[in-house]
């Protein structure tokens, strides 16, 4: 029966190719617009660490005070050095790390390549197990290395390729700005997007960092932050130089803790309240200082990690698909009712209402399938064009995955079948006698 319906659909296509083509094109374009924007949206709004995100938290401390514009919903989004160190040394969480972005010059020792700049992070040993970083060679460093400000470095696969030609470089020396560092690990393609641990400094999207080194070592070598440094809390002049900056109320250190269960979260909240109360007592804060503990996903929301453009585009494209759907209902209605005579004949020859209904829904599904295939090729084209529409770092994330291919065809077929429900119902209720009389 289905084959017969397809035959009828083909015949109907031959009779009104213009109308059918129009439906296919409209469905294809509508689906492609929605799918392209959806692919971008999904790429940027995903959970960077799905199995771990519920255990990762960001503490916030109000070192600004209400007179400098901080409110409960808007506390400084990084910590001062002294607060970060106090939280590090307290070790109340299962794991914890202070983090800040650094820019360094890597100096190849082969005598032929010029030095180049590399982006990385200064962090504590817990960074790697906490964020489930995966290694190609070697491992992260140890707490002892943090204690002794060791000159250890973990490099990316790309930097390993660039400097060592891709061989296992663990144990070899890397010259960073005139100092030798010992490579202890090479990260494979681990690059969570958005880069949740740095969304307070950057857009959160981009290539993997080139290296990671010990926070204590970076401080010892007086390496400044390559990210945001906000000194809104220092209304009075800072003490000059590096030490003055470390002692200042400038916020620039990100801080992450791993808290495996609710009781750990509660304990950490209590610890934070106790800590700020102590700071108030010692006269550092002249206000009732607030604290906050964000989960990873709440933190991404709070920092606006998903670019609003991607949401607006998705919304407008979905509206466009809705118009395409309404349009298709109208066109299908026109197409089907034009064939009232044929329906009359089929009904008179014994086809049931259900058969007519199924015939037109099947025909619509065929149109939807064609629209879906067209939509697919247009989506593929759209993927090439995302570079023009979005930040390249974001556009690069949107890919035509097998799931997206299936979804595209499915959405087009579903939309067309939904569009066909009413016209097919109208067709099934055509009066055969009326049609036969007027032939």
């Amino acid at each position, binding site marked *: 029966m289905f084959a017969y319906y397809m035959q009828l659909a083909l015949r109907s296509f031959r009779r009104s190719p213009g109308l059918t083509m129009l439906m296919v094109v409209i469905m294809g374009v509508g689906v492609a617009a929605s799918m392209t924007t959806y692919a971008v949206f999904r790429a940027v709004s995903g959970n960077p660490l799905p199995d771990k995100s519920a255990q990762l938290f960001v503490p916030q401390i109000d070192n600004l005070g209400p007179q400098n514009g901080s409110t409960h919903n808007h506390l400084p989004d990084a910590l001062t050095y002294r607060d970060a160190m106090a939280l590090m040394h307290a070790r109340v969480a299962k794991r914890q790390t202070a983090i800040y972005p650094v820019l360094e010059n890597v100096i190849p020792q082969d005598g032929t390549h010029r*030095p180049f*700049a590399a982006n990385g992070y200064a962090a504590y040993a817990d960074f790697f197990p906490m964020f489930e970083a995966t290694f190609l060679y070697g491992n992260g460093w140890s707490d002892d290395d943090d204690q002794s400000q060791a000159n250890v470095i973990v490099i990316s696969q790309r930097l390993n390729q660039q400097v060592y030609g891709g061989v296992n470089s663990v144990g070899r020396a890397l010259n960073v*700005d005139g100092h030798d560092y010992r490579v202890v690990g090479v990260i494979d393609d681990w690059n969570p997007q958005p880069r949740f641990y740095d969304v307070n400094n950057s857009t959160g999207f981009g290539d993997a960092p080139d290296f990671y080194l010990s926070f204590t070592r970076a401080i010892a070598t007086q390496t400044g932050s390559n990210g945001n440094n906000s000194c809104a809390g220092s209304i009075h*002049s800072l003490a*000059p130089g590096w030490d003055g900056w470390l002692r200042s109320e400038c916020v620039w250190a990100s801080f992450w803790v791993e808290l495996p269960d609710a009781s750990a979260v509660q304990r950490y909240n209590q610890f934070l309240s106790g800590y700020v109360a102590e700071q108030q007592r010692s006269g550092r804060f002249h206000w009732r200082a607030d604290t906050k503990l964000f989960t990873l996903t709440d933190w991404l929301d709070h920092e606006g990690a998903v670019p609003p453009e991607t949401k607006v585009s998705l*919304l407008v494209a979905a509206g466009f698909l809705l118009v395409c759907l309404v349009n298709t209902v109208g066109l299908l209605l026109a197409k089907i*009712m034009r064939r009232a005579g044929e329906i009359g004949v089929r009904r008179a020859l014994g086809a049931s209402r259900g058969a007519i209904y199924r015939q037109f829904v099947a025909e619509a599904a065929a149109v939807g399938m064609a629209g879906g295939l067209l939509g697919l090729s247009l989506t593929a084209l759209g993927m090439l064009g995302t570079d*023009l529409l979005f930040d390249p770092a974001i556009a690069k994330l949107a890919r035509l995955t097998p799931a997206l291919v299936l979804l595209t065809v499915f959405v087009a077929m579903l939309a067309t079948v939904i569009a066909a429900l009413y016209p097919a119902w109208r067709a099934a209720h055509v009066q055969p006698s009326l049609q036969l009389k007027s032939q």
Partner: protein
Amino acid sequence: MQIRPILSALRHHKAGTILIVLQIALTLAIVCNALSIIHQRVTRLSRPSGLDEADVLVIQNQWIGRPSMQQVQALMASDLETLRRVPGLMDAYATNGYPLGVDGWSKGVRYTMDQQTATSPSAIYFADDHALATLGLKLIAGRNFRADEIAAMAARDTLLPRVVIVTKALADKLFPDGTAVGRQICVGSAPPSTIVGVVEHMQTSTGTFSQAWDERSLLVPFRLLDGSTSYVVRARPGELTSVLRDAPQALIAANPLRVIGDKDIKPYATIRADAYRTDRGIALLMGIICVVLLGTTAAGIVGLTSFWVSQRRKHIGVRRALGATKHDILSYFCTENLLLSAGGVAIGALLAVALNALLVDQFEMQRLSLNYIVAGMIVVVLLGQSAVFVPAWRASQLPPVEATRSV
């Protein structure tokens, strides 16, 4: 033209009527908001940066081996000399950031030191006496920095400027009476500084982009002694390409202990394109959606009207036989479409406002101006009329004999 018969005919085509009205309404709602988004984005990306952009380029420089502050000061001075000797180069200066750049400093500006909250935030640009000439900034009041006012400041020191140059936008915010030159302001935690000059435009850096403090920038007479420096360079007209090639080479030849990567050398056109990439992309996407949407709706109207004409062949034939002219038939279908469009745009205007309210609420967009709704209504009605014309004209060409055909 009588409207009553049209309405009674439409009552017999409820489904088609509702579909066309709905489609017109949705189209209007989306097109109005898309046009408004395009307008906002295009306004943003056509703001003046204040620079003479065609001849300006930026070279990002990183010193190797952590030189001391004294060393950096000497290195920077010799770099500027090297740069000024490059053929085709007009002027150059060293800074921490530049308009539309990614990195930037900002500080709160207050009238007095005991004022608790800042009157306005401001972008902070390090500059010397060459900065205005290099960037091509237009000085509209006061004077430029003098060479003897330029001092050096270490990266972690507190900014303590004696004199500053502000943009007109910042001057207007601080001193609305227009007497900024000679007045004093406190920048960050510094004691009062005197405003010596006002420049017409100077955009903030992208990191500090915000509607609220558009173009509020100020220049301070310091060289910032940091590991990383931006050299802003101006080429003589037509010499940009050769300076882009020669200036970094001259710097590396003079002192190879530095990093200047390929991405660190940018003509200002690239900086502008990067800064506004998202705005341009969104405007483009909304434009494409508008065009395709209007095309889709027009095609839908043509399709449905053709269907109605084919259904009413007999009806048209009867009217023609009873004396209706071709023009009567044409105007019947055009009026019918006008009625549908009117219903559609009325509902569409409400939908447009509702959609805009959602966008304003969720994405901090601007309110939809009434002009867009009116313009959108006119566009949609005209689109409907032109879409209906071909099927209506075909209907008017039906001979009266149609009426007798199938009786």
